[in-house]
């Protein structure tokens, strides 16, 4: 586990040292501030509108960041050839995958915390109120959703280059985020094989919608009870472990070609 932490630290150092992430964070925060203060349909003064738009953006931006950071790590090691000197150390491929995932996840969660703080600050400036316990629960569950997304990004990147892994991760997680909650509406009209396929997709893909507390925060429904929260966290942890195991299975006997370095 210590070796995994050392790998995670190198992911952090790369993010901190490469200035492009700061630029991205500043741009995203500026976009967040600008969009949440727009006065569409005269709703600009309504704090519900501000928090709704802000949280939607936080989900969108954190999703982009999670896929980009996680799908980049392993292909970059292979392209630069640093994978050879890394795997020549007494480190297992499982430790490498856990380290890369841990680094990517904690980086994205930190950026996510900045987004949530920005939303809270904008709402506070507009003299609005967000239930802090619901907001914290929403943030925690959002971070667990990001744990699954980063694990998916890592899993795809074990066998693909960055571009392919990022594209497939976006399609896979995007379908889960946006289409999955709508499937029951379509499935009731279907029969036979199509209904079975829809049911398989509905139950097979990760349900990010149940980890999404935006509506509870925006409409002030209050926090969920402890047992529900625990069940959601366990669900997210199981899925994260599942995708990390897939990543390890795909990576444990992978051959590295020298032609990748040329």
């Amino acid at each position, binding site marked *: 586990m210590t070796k995994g932490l*050392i790998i995670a630290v190198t992911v952090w150092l790369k993010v901190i040292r490469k200035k492009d992430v700061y630029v991205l964070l500043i741009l995203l925060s500026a976009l967040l501030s600008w969009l949440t203060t727009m006065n569409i349909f005269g709703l600009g003064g309504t704090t519900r509108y501000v928090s709704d738009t802000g949280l939607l953006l936080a989900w969108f931006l954190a999703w982009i960041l999670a896929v980009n950071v996680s799908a980049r790590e392993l292909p970059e090691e292979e392209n630069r050839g640093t994978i050879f000197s890394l795997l*020549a150390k007494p*480190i297992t491929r499982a430790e490498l995958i856990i380290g890369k995932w841990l680094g990517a996840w904690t980086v994205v969660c930190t950026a996510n915390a900045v987004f949530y703080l920005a939303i809270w600050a904008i709402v506070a400036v507009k003299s609005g109120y967000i239930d802090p316990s619901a907001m914290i629960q929403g943030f925690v569950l959002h971070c667990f959703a990001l744990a699954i997304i980063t694990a998916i990004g890592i899993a795809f990147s074990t066998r693909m280059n960055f571009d392919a892994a990022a594209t497939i991760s976006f399609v896979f997680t995007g379908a889960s985020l946006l289409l999955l909650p709508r499937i029951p509406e379509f499935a009731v009209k279907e029969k036979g094989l199509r209904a079975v396929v829809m049911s398989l997709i509905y139950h097979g893909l990760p349900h990010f919608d149940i980890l999404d507390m935006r509506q509870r925060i925006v409409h002030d429904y209050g926090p969920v009870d402890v047992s529900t929260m625990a069940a959601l966290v366990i669900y997210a942890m199981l899925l994260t472990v599942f995708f990390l195991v897939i990543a390890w299975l795909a990576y444990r006997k992978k051959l590295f070609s020298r032609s990748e370095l040329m």
Partner: protein
Amino acid sequence: MNKAIEIVDLSVKFPSRGGFVEALSHINFSVETGQVCAFLGPNGAGKTTTIHVLLGFLAATEGMAKIFGEDVRKSIARQRIGYLAEHPDTYRFLTGREALSITGRLFGMTGRTLQSNVNAILAMLDMTSAANRKISTYSRGMMQRICLGQSLINNPDLIILDEPTGGLDPIGRMNIRKIIGRLRDEGKTIFFSSHELSEAETVCDHLVIISSGNIVVSGAINKLIKPGENLEKYFMKTIQTAAIHD
């Protein structure tokens, strides 16, 4: 003498269109502790494939490879190895000192032991003055030296170098050669592949020549090369003979 490297009946096959390509064909050789062994062969002979099996990057199709008696598939076998890859690269966003320090931590080093090892390696590589600069600002030769430093940070008993002077200018080559000489004088076991035959001749005491996935020669250099002959002549003669037999 103990065996630092032991390869027994090792074969590696890669899947190819409609069958397999045999990169290594039942090869056998060993390297004793304290030897400096040059691993020579033409391009595509199987040198890097052999090194990759030793480091656990590739699985053998048949046979076995051991390092200090440990199966190379176990990560513990790599605890006593230092490895410099062909065309080495490292995290360029780190400083030289940080790169060595992080590598040391992967070997379980911490605190003063780590710091003193890092300082000693930087001094040996003549990199102390550039230690706090980012690696992205280094020249190719400096990068090669810091990568060599990463492979030496754990004070390894066996050092595996894949084309250690490849792509370097004469001064860079001389610096690396000096470091190899110093490691040899310290009694380290060194196993290196190279195309620079004159260079290999000056530092090695043992020779393994591979051609088309077969070991054609293995032995002490002073027994293999006759007086008046040099390694380059001997190598050319051996490779040509092996090609005729193929």
